[in-house]
């Protein structure tokens, strides 16, 4: 179990994190979700021990590791750009964490080699052990980085934007594969992402961060359906903000025969399994996005229609930030 307690961090005058509290159970898959500058990567690096907090504590299984350097925390860290050792073969990269151990803790050479082979199989790169990182594709490098981190049998796996540098298709495949691997190996993992779709798809719980604070911690369902703040509502999924303060998801708007709110339709296109209607509120010109079931007939461009909210949310002043 990982417990983060009142973590505060500044870079010079720039406050990166304000009093972060977080508890993670063994076996959980956690996403730190937020825009750039939200402090998510800093938090991940503090948990790893790559960065040190100004205030607060980090506990691993009840033990205070706040002052323990990264090498002794036994965490696996997958870097955004993979940070592979380019002059070493893939197998040597993977074995690195074992070969740098002190002689008395170091497994025999043959065993290290076997472990590297085993991990190559786990990350589905069998037969590529003799290649160099420069000879691999982005997705393959990513998996080497993961295997290298797993080789030390970490008690916690940390991933910084693990899919950031990959193209869409590879990203999707790797996501599913990583989730399976997490389950199979019984890992406890935290990953940082700015991609809400990724966070909702992968994580058991999502930690939504903004400006160095946690806005909400919850299951993907909770974060999407019951956003705690206006920020979460807009960052996770799409939300229309109407002039009267209501926040409405595009799929929570319906077109009705008669209504107070009238929308001029600017554009209609197909988006996945539904129609996306873009328009402007008649009175204020506020842009509104509406999703309509693909079996229904969408309004025509130029038409003015009345809308009603099936479900809307109003945030208090404290929840507005």
């Amino acid at each position, binding site marked *: 179990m990982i417990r983060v307690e009142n973590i505060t961090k500044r870079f010079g005058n720039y406050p990166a994190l304000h009093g972060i509290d977080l508890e993670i159970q063994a076996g959980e898959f956690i996403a730190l979700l937020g825009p750039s500058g939200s402090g998510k990567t800093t938090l991940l690096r503090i948990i790893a021990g*790559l960065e040190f907090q100004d205030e607060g504590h980090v506990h691993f299984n009840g033990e205070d590791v706040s002052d323990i350097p990264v*090498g002794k925390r036994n965490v696996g*860290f997958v*870097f955004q*750009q993979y940070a592979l*050792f380019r002059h070493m073969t893939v197998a040597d990269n993977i074995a*690195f964490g074992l070969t740098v151990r002190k002689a008395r803790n170091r497994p025999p050479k043959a065993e290290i080699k076997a472990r590297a082979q085993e991990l190559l199989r786990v990350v589905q790169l069998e037969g590529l052990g003799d290649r*160099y990182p420069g*000879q691999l594709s982005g997705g393959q490098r990513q998996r080497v980085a993961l295997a290298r981190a797993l080789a*030390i049998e970490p008690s916690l796996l940390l991933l910084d934007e693990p899919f950031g540098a990959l193209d869409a298709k590879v990203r999707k495949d790797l996501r599913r594969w990583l989730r399976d691997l997490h389950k199979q190996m019984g890992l406890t993992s935290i990953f940082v992402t700015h991609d809400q779709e990724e966070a909702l798809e992968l994580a058991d719980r999502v930690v939504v961060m903004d400006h160095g604070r946690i806005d909400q911690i919850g299951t993907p369902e909770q974060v999407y359906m019951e956003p705690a703040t206006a920020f979460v509502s807009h960052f996770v999924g799409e939300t229309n903000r109407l002039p009267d303060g209501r926040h409405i998801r595009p799929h929570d708007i319906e077109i009705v025969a008669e209504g107070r709110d009238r929308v001029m339709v600017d554009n209609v296109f197909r988006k996945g399994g539904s129609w996306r209607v873009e328009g402007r509120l008649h009175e204020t010109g506020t842009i509104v996005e509406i999703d309509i079931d693909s079996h229904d007939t969408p309004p025509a461009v130029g038409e003015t229609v009345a809308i009603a909210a099936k479900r809307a949310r109003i945030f208090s002043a404290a929840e507005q930030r």
Partner: protein
Amino acid sequence: MPSMTTRKTTWRAPSVLPGFGLTFGFSLAWLSLIVLIPLSMLFIKSAGMGWQAFVDVGFSERALTAYRLSFGTALAAAFVNAVFGLLVAWVLVRYAFPGKRVISALVDLPFALPTAVAGIALTALYAPSGWVGQYLDPLGIKVAFTPIGITVALVFIGLPFVVRSVEPVLADLGKDVEEAAATLGAGRAQTFARVIFPAILPALFTGFALAFARGVGEYGSVIFISGNMPGKTEIAPLLIVTQLEQYNYDGATAIAMVMMLVSFAVLFTLNAVQSIRRRRLGA
């Protein structure tokens, strides 16, 4: 319908970058003017003197000793520079300290300083009566007028080559690679030996080769500190000048020819090793 255009077969790979013909032509013309034509004059000149005469001068006892001295001291100096140049580059890249820019500028000074000035200054320092020499002399260490002195001069001349080759690569080396090593449990020494050093080795190699090449051809700074005793501290470039002063142009050409071939062989080998390495890394 299959395309009817047939590509003209050329010996270069097709490229979207325009102007290959023009730029290649210019490069070749320039290289010819500056390097190839003067060097080919060497060949022509030495070809005219006949094989026996060439061997007599080019491989005389005196010349062989001079080659050994020139290449030996250049090699030793390049090694010293590889070690300390790396250290200087490391300090310049990795730490922030007051006066860093001044030190960085000082590194380039051997490039700018007339080599004779360097030679005279070093001789004054290391002569048995000099500032440093007076302490070394009682210990039985003679620097000036020995091969050690020549090496010292070449170290001075070659330092910037290593520093400036290694510096950008060291600066470019991602922090994340070192952090990765740290997360995997490697200590500082292990990280340096197994992660950082191998990464900068190619640049260090280049700096070494440049310092070596410069050392082999160095003349100005060496002639003062070496003492120029034939068969003892006479370097090959000096031997060439000596031949010229005696109007023995053929002899000078023969010695120059041998030096050039050896230097080219060494540099070509170093480059070949480099490119094999690069290809292996798939970069």
